[in-house]
């Protein structure tokens, strides 16, 4: 490096050089677009013409009175329940069952995680076949079990379709909680569990008082990321139903896409994008504050 620089200057220069590209990418691809989207959400624009028209809060008030928006928001809320309660519960159960020395452990873990490695579009493709009303495995199995009455038009019936989405989403998504819980359980020292048993704790008691508290960090991570995922979900729904029939399976991501890229209502699309952003920030804000505290603790 240059002769004239002292140690501190050299250090500063190194830091600036290393961080320049990542920070520039952040400014250009996150900060600028978020501000621009916010700006757009107060305007009317078709995406092509030279001029935008200031619209105040009109895009937002239109959204609130739109039935598509309400259906989508309701579906996102239902998906949050699925992703934050049902899927992690299944993941935790399986992780607990596999958290012992046993034959075939790796085999089970590997197979159970496979659906999580594939693209949601492939999951949609396979589940569209599984749910085929006439020939799909689901309705065929129900008929074979004498439960033909329970057969549904899984993706076509407005009352049922969201459950069809949820079943495929659970299949594609539960590997994440499973894996995080599995990793979390490895940090629980076996000696601690043994000690609690010697003290006369039943299996359930040691689960509640020893294992669950140690899983708190994993649980926080899962709740934060799964809520976020349920809010921004797009690919799977887009490929399975496109939000149909008649918006009954739509989600905010599809609502936004539809306004922007199908109807060219950029302002309204931007308003939907801002709602998505605010919802995510409500979830992630507290999580970021928590994790930044732990960063500082590690530093000190």
């Amino acid at each position, binding site marked *: *490096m240059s002769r004239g620089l002292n140690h501190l200057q*050299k*250090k*500063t220069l*190194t*830091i600036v050089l*290393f*961080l320049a590209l*990542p920070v520039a*990418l*952040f400014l*250009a*691809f*996150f900060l600028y*677009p978020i501000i*621009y989207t916010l700006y757009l959400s107060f305007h009317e624009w078709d995406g092509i013409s030279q001029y935008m028209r200031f619209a105040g809060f009109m895009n937002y008030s239109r959204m609130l009175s739109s039935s598509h928006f309400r259906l989508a928001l309701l579906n996102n809320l239902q998906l949050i329940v699925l992703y934050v309660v049902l899927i992690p519960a299944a993941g935790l159960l*399986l992780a607990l*069952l596999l958290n012992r020395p046993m034959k075939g452990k790796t085999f*089970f873990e590997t*197979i*159970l995680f*496979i659906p999580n*490695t*594939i*693209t*949601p*579009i492939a999951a*949609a*493709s*396979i589940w*569209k*076949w599984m749910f*085929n009303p006439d*020939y*799909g*495995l689901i309705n*065929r*199995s129900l008929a*074979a079990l004498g439960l033909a009455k329970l057969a549904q038009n899984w993706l076509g019936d407005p009352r049922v379709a969201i459950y069809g989405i949820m079943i495929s989403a659970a299949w594609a998504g539960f590997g994440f909680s499973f*894996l995080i819980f599995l990793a979390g359980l490895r940090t629980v020292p076996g000696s601690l569990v043994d000690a609690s048993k010697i003290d006369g704790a039943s299996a359930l008691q040691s689960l509640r008082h020893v294992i669950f508290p140690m899983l708190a*960090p994993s649980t926080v*991570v899962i709740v934060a*990321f799964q809520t*976020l995922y349920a*809010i*921004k979900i*797009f*690919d799977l729904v887009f490929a*399975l139903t*496109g939000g149909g029939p008649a918006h009954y399976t739509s989600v*905010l991501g599809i609502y936004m896409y539809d306004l922007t890229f199908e109807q060219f209502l*950029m302002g309204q*699309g931007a308003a939907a*994008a801002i709602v998505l*952003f605010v919802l995510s*920030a409500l979830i992630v804000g507290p999580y*970021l504050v928590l*994790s*930044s505290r732990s*960063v500082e603790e590690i530093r000190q």
Partner: protein
Amino acid sequence: MKKRVQLAGLYAFLILVTLLVIAPLVVALNTALKVSEEVWDVTSLPTRISLRNFIEGFRAISRGLFNSTLITIPSMLISTFVGTLAAYPLSQLRFKGDIAIYLLILVGLYVPFQTVLIPLFLLIRKLGLYDTIPGMWLVNTAYGVPYTTLILRNFFTTVPKELIEAASLDGCSLAAYYWRILLPVGKIGIAATFILQFRAIWNEFLFGLTITRRPQIMPVTIYLQSFVGMTDIKWGHLMAATLIAILPTIAVFLFFKRHFVNGLTGVYK
């Protein structure tokens, strides 16, 4: 005796769950191996194995597979490289505002892509990168960097601080430390980052949908989606194409399972 019954019950339950989880993939494979008249009976096995569907399915998405390879490999390399640049000072050097910059980059993990989509679309068009492979490199890199930075930073913080002190006493400059010591020492973290980025970019859909248009550019996920969206689906072809499209990520997962799990648990902690 009670123990054995319990163990048998445990295995029975796990095998049942595993069968349920794997069933959709088995159904897809079973359907894909059949001749077209037999496809409609989903529970029957093929009376004769036919690779016809795989040939047709491959033909339908082969260009997408090629495009996705062209998009994924460079994006994976570049986003991981940029991640090492950011992770080095953020993990090894203390400076004013380090936590602020770290948190800013982390914010990138949580922003829904829909929130940046319209300006991104306009920006990419202005740069002349709309509907091009380099455009996909840029986008996948920009939105991959928060992930790669986070994983790599978590790995790099485990590198002992004594190493950088010793290196500086030996007269090794900070930049040389990055190249000659940190990268080789952190190679496990880098491998994990590669694997996770491979999966993320290969599976990516929304950017493909919005910033590519021509079949020569579109990634395989878009090919598959337009196949799924057809009104009169040839299920044998579609199931074969689906299995072909997911083969790379499943293979990478099975071959590099340790790195994969390391990476995932390294991001989310």
